[in-house]
């Protein structure tokens, strides 16, 4: 309990401290981490709890990002209008893609979600009116959320709300059903669970939250381009999920924080002895990421949250 209060306080006063020391860059960075945490958490719902290996999740993030951007670009500057629109668009996309894809299983599912993501990518690239390949730069953030500190709190609020939602969902009947379906689909069907409907619902919820993350991402950088939808972005999100812990409440958030934090540290804070050992190691950060990921898959499939759980007896995760 004490730990929780402490963490909450830290998160709340962090931006004020940074602002005072003229380090607004870090507030912006923290917002970015939280946005990715949100996206990763949405994937965690679909992938971790639902067991659906969707390689097309970036498409939902991208849909949200583009809808939110187009709203601002076309003059609809209020976030109250733009962001729900983004969420709705992403949910709709998830509904359509899910309805078609969930008829398949296994690798076919992976492939078809990937295919849809690529389709979305190419379609968006061809939208010359909204930048196409070059991307779209926003004149300002929705609702003029230009103040980094204010934006940080908005993102923090949305992330917390989403995590709370996930927690409630995971511990509800819906959550248990989804996990049961993931564990053994045939048995779940035999017990009378409408598998397709539950999976689709899970997929859509995940897509909707991803859309929100996308809207936040576009507003944060005031820039969006088709690469947000590329399947390699789906891969990045997956890395975050597995790093943090598949199917664990904090998995997405931890994974995002660790991955982005590591990337920043490696790129911007050279370590002298490592530099001597391998000059230019900073350019090759992905190598480290790849190795870490491989190690986790091979040796610690429960991710960092799983490792933490093993240390403290009886963790607070909702994984089965």
């Amino acid at each position, binding site marked *: 309990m004490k*730990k929780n209060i*402490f*963490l909450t306080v*830290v998160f709340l006063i962090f931006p004020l*401290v*940074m602002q005072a*020391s*003229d*380090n*607004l*860059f*870090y507030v*912006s960075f923290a917002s970015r981490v939280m946005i990715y945490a949100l996206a990763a958490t949405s994937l965690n719902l679909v992938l971790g709890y639902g067991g659906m290996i969707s390689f097309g999740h970036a498409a939902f993030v991208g849909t949200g990002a583009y809808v939110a951007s187009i709203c601002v670009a076309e003059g609809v500057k209020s976030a109250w209008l733009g962001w729900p629109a983004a969420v709705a668009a992403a949910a709709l996309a998830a509904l359509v893609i899910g309805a078609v894809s969930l008829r398949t299983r296994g690798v076919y599912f992976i492939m078809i979600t990937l295919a849809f993501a690529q389709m979305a990518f190419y379609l968006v690239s061809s939208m*010359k009116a909204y930048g*196409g*390949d*070059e*991307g779209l*730069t926003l004149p300002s953030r929705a609702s003029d959320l230009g103040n980094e500190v204010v934006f940080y709190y908005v993102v923090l609020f949305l992330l917390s709300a989403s995590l709370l939602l996930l927690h409630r969902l995971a511990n509800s009947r819906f959550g248990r059903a989804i996990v049961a379906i993931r564990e053994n689909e045939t048995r779940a069907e035999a017990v009378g669970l409408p598998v397709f409907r539950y999976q689709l619902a899970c997929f859509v919820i995940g897509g909707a939250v991803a859309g929100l993350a996308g809207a936040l991402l576009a507003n944060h*950088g*005031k*820039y969006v*381009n088709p*690469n*947000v939808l590329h399947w390699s972005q789906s891969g990045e999100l997956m890395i975050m999920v597995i790093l943090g812990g598949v199917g664990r409440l904090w998995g997405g958030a931890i994974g995002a924080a660790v991955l982005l934090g590591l990337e920043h540290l490696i790129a*911007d*804070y050279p370590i002298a002895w490592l530099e001597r050992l391998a000059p230019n190691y900073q*350019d090759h950060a992905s190598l480290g990421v790849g190795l870490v990921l491989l190690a986790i898959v091979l040796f610690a499939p429960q991710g960092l949250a799983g490792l933490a759980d093993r240390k403290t007896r009886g963790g607070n995760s909702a994984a089965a």
Partner: protein
Amino acid sequence: MKTLKTLLVATSFVLANQAHSADKLKIGFVSTLSGPSAALGVDIRDAFQLAIKMNGGRLGGLPVEVLVGDDQFKPELGRQIAEKYVKLDKVNFLTGFVFSNIMLASVPVAFENKVIYVSPNAAPSPLAGKDCNPYFFVASWPNDAYHEAAGQHATNKGYKSAYLIAPNYQAGKDSLAGFKRFYKGQIAAEVYTQLGQLDYSAELAQVRAAKPAALYIFLPGGMGINFIKQFVAAGLSQDIPLIVPGFGDDQDIIRPVGEALLGTFDTAHWALDLDNPANKKFVAAFEKEYKRLPSVFAAQGYDTAQLIDSAVRGVKGKVEDVEAVRKAMKAAKFDSVRGAFKFNRNQYPIQNYYLRVVAKDAQGRLVNKSIGTVFKDRGDAYVQDCAMK
């Protein structure tokens, strides 16, 4: 307890980074340094750093720290690095981008934070006209310029029809618009390919079917290398004369493509053999340092550094006064390798454009020889839309 410790470590990292001396010049250099088009960014960077080295590690009298970042041809990455340089490292100048799309995505963060961006290459038309910005200076040439000169050349040569190919992005649009502005013949076709595309079999089939009198392409970097190779492999080079903008057959293309380029005409604002002392010094120094001939990109990178040098000297090192730096930069008091250099009121250059041809020099190397002047003192077509004085 653990969390508290990590927090302390993190904050100390952050605070340690605050050591920021105001008597040093920090320049953020972001460019495309990897991938098939890396040669361009590398040339600009090498020439830029050469200029600093020749000035004793200083620009305008101040010691310089250049932060170099690689955008890997990705706009969002370029933007991220630019943001970091501007907001975290608090650079005094930002520069380096090769490609217009990456630059357009990345410079807004500089403009918003009153950091001057000096472009060593990309100079798209919106920023010359209605979007002109006081913090944007062009040390190269307006995007349309080479293409306008090429169009004029095609008109001069009397080609009845021209087939046009460019990638589908701002600079591509600008290029063909520029060509058409001065080409008076018939346009056989205007084809836009995908940015970064490397396989042109479909497009070449279309060219063959159209049988134009001349083919004009704007395909920078790896795109051009591949296109020209495939163009020659398909046998089309025997039938259709190829015209390119100056960088389409400069050193970075000559190296991989080779003799197939002999006889190709192009237009540019600079050539290796331009006869002025600054250029002779530059070409000799570049060749000595890097063991290769400089391309038009290198010339631009060198001039960028010189321009910054002149601006800093103009304010006697007081770079905190950004308005004064701007004024000094606009005066452009430096010896450009292209000869005379002056800015238009939209901070784009007014200069000459030459006709060049790929031929062998005295040592048998493939170079671009200047053989004539196509335009004298040309500005650009968009300055009237710019509100700046």
